[in-house]
């Protein structure tokens, strides 16, 4: 297993998420590149028509991107075109990985993703039970495979995830779907405690919206924070590219500052 992404968590990491192609290809390129200054890893969504783990904000972003013609092939072109040093992780659903290329299974997409410069995967509808083929493909092409640990994950499931995870572990802060919240769940500390001895960094996501949230999460023991909906909401505002770019940069800086403050 590779450790490529692990190294990026030396200081509290800011891991933003945007949907590739939202609201259109060119705008989206600009927004993702804007994130690169503050971000330590970028989770870049490859939109799927049935995103069962997403709340309304990201569902709508996925619809916008699909309507503007985003496909797995264009996604790979998008990644190649990005001029960022920040590592890119592909977040998508299993059917798109499974269907790509001329052999069934995730291997062709993982190979193509590796060539495009992607460094890891998060696949929210792929629990460890079904993950062996993707883990094998990621190993073959030197990519990390990030798994989600939910508030309900315990016992044997934790042990199995610990065996398969690489890069970082995505700690789901609360139950439900993605989406920015006004508060941060009190279950985060308990979730972090359950995976205390793990060698991979722990990045917490689901509901983080402000620098103050970020600070609190890092203070609770997280190695990084994952923020999606709070950024996607800015894209969804419908303002012009310059205004959205500006607001994304401001929000990203706030979140990174918050994460760093949590470590002081």
């Amino acid at each position: 297993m590779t450790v490529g992404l692990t190294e990026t968590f030396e200081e509290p990491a800011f891991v933003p998420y945007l949907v590739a192609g939202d609201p259109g290809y060119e705008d989206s390129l600009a927004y993702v590149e804007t994130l690169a200054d503050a971000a330590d890893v970028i989770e870049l969504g490859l939109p799927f028509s049935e995103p069962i783990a997403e709340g309304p904000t990201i569902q709508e972003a996925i619809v916008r991107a699909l309507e503007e013609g985003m496909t797995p092939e264009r996604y790979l072109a998008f990644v190649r075109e990005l001029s960022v040093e920040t590592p890119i992780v592909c977040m998508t659903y299993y059917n798109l990985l499974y269907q790509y290329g001329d052999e069934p299974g995730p291997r062709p997409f993982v190979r193509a993703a590796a060539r495009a410069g992607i460094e890891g995967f998060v696949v929210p509808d792929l629990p460890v039970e079904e993950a062996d083929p993707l883990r094998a493909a990621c190993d073959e092409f030197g990519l990390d495979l990030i798994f989600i640990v939910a508030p309900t994950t315990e016992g044997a499931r934790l042990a199995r995830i610990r065996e398969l995870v690489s890069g970082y572990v995505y700690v789901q802060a609360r139950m439900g779907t993605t989406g920015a919240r006004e508060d941060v769940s009190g279950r985060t500390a308990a979730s972090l405690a359950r995976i205390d001895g793990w060698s991979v960094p722990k990045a917490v996501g689901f509901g983080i919206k402000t620098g103050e949230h970020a600070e609190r999460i890092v203070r609770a023991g997280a190695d990084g924070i994952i923020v999606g909906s709070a950024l996607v909401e800015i894209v969804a505002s419908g303002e012009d590219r310059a205004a959205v770019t500006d607001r994304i940069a401001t929000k990203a800086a706030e979140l990174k500052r918050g994460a760093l403050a949590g470590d002081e």
Partner: protein
Amino acid sequence: MTAPTEGGRSARTEADGKYGAYGGQYVPEALMPAIEELTDAYERYVLDNEEGFIDEFRRRLADFGGRPTPLQRADQLSARYDREVYLKREDLLHGGAHKLNNALGQVLLAQYMGKDRIIAETGAGQHGTATAMAAAHLDMPCEIYMGETDIARQRPNVFRIRTNGAEVVPVTTGRGTLKEAISETMRDWAGTVENTHYVIGSIVGPHPFPALVRTFQSVISEEARRQARDRIGRLPDSVVACAGGGSNTMGAFDAFRDDDVALYAVEAGGSSLGVDQDRGVAPNSASLSTGTEGVLHGARTKLLQDGDGQIVESHSVSAGLDYAGVGPELAHLVDRGQVEPVAVDDDDALEAFHRLSQAEGIIPALETAHAFGYLETVSEGQADGLGEVVLVNVSGRGDKDLETVLEETADRELSVAPNMDVLRRAGGLGGGQADAADQGE
């Protein structure tokens, strides 16, 4: 009645939830502990009858549900098709469809598991109705997710769900049909799984749902098989059932799987077969006949998808068949040649709706009408595999579809449709419907 643990039944329940290449558990990690808990409950209560679960389920199915449902010889259809046509009357089950078999089983199971809230998705509204009834019967709070398109075209069932005291949550994403309703119910469950049971309505979703729902629905074929022996003195040559997700299909087939009985799954052919890659839609719901392998809603199965793996919008005049996927076990049986998938289009289904209503005095659900449509189309040809004795599963009654049928019939030239002049003259057709009726004349 044969308990599900007897005979060869339990041997067919794949422990890992795999049906050949199909099945599995493709769901968010947050749901997996609940899936494991449900698997454990399925094995203990349903398969092993712990705490007398199955005994209570059977008793409630009889007292509350009205089981057993009759096996009836269809005299006019038998004469028309020159063969013995028998009907398994699931439309006479409480609620008017086979759906209660599963809904009652799962709500009762939720109670045994100590859950205190029920959620479910519904397409045609039959599963939502059955779940709302079962939840009222067992005194559990209940919320039903339903696409807005389906709410509009299945209003009688929305009234029934609300009348039984359950909430209806409109789903506005996508085209607002069953696919979106399932996705939205899964999202609710991801946040509420600790106290909530998701009563999935068909043999779809992650293991153990396909096995669990099939086990509850197999009462249909267990009864029919026994009734055929008693009444006809033999088994049917074939069983015909409509297939959307496939719960009435597997229910009607299950006990005949080891017999020399041909099994026909009739899918919704919609307006035409195939997937329109450019528009990303399928003008049908024929995933068994035309779908390709993929992963949707927790299972690997046959799907209507584009070349990239995006799920396409399906279509059928029948809301209950309007789904881009199908149960993994049914997909597997089709691949193995044990079940023959066939398709009946919207027009033939509507004709069959009217024919059965007029010939037998049974108004079928539009879903069910597809099964009778197959009987008609195949009987027009020469050779067929239906044989001398055909059993058709009447999965549900059509009261819920009368508005849809009135509108759809007016738009088409159907040989058997009645005209509704009497209603129009009395001013009983609303504006839009009167216009539609005019066009049909």
